[in-house]
């Protein structure tokens, strides 16, 4: 089946983050021969792809794990551009355009609009949200 996953929660959130659950679920999808149409990082979920985050030695690096998962499996990883800008997650173009010091978006994914979320719901057999 064709799946899309919406990730709406941050790695270190007050609210109760399910972003590790989302990663494990995405891995299990491929292991069970399903396909992933898109990962859509929205709201606080954009922090999952923060290139600046530093994981203490000996702890699990969720940002790196997302990047490897997206790269190794050629997944379409999309980060909502408006949600990301508010939270300071920028690619090269956005950082230059707004005069900010550096790109902070991990390389594997790209910034785009909410149309990518709506398209994903229209073409996928299943849409699952992790909030």
């Amino acid at each position, binding site marked *: 089946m064709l799946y899309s996953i*919406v990730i*709406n929660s941050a790695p270190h959130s007050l609210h109760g983050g399910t972003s590790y659950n989302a990663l494990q679920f995405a891995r299990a999808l491929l292991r069970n021969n399903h396909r992933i149409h898109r990962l859509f990082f929205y709201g606080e979920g954009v922090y999952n792809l923060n290139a600046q985050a530093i994981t203490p030695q000996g702890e699990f690096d969720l940002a790196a794990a997302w990047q490897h998962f997206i790269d190794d499996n050629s997944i379409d990883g999309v980060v909502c551009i*408006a*949600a990301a800008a508010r939270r300071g997650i920028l690619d090269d173009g956005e950082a230059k355009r707004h005069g900010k010091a550096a790109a902070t978006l991990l390389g594997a994914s790209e910034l785009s609009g909410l*149309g990518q979320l*709506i398209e994903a*719901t*229209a073409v996928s057999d299943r*849409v699952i949200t992790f909030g």
Partner: protein
Amino acid sequence: MIQCDLLFIFRHSPYGSSLGREGLEAALAAGAFEQNMAILFLDEGVWQLLDNQAAEHIARKNHQKMAKALPLFGIDKLYCSADHLHQRALEAEALAMTCQPLDNSQIKQLMANAKNILSF
């Protein structure tokens, strides 16, 4: 029958978290892409519909005004939980916009008939 392909469920208050606004922005995007969609307001989400919001007092965008744009995007299937209105001593007539209260079994039917749900 109460039916849609894409169901948005809004459970959070307009200003207390980012979910109120970001959910609404996602719904407006779906409207722009002409999806067969509906919005269901549950729990604290029903506060999004309250009239006389004056968000300038907390330096925020007025959620009520954004919500009123929904019909302009062709989004007219707006539902809320009658129970959750009642628990908050709210009347459907006092809301800022037309929104049909559903009972528990109608809400279950709406969810069961949806192809996909986006929850905020």
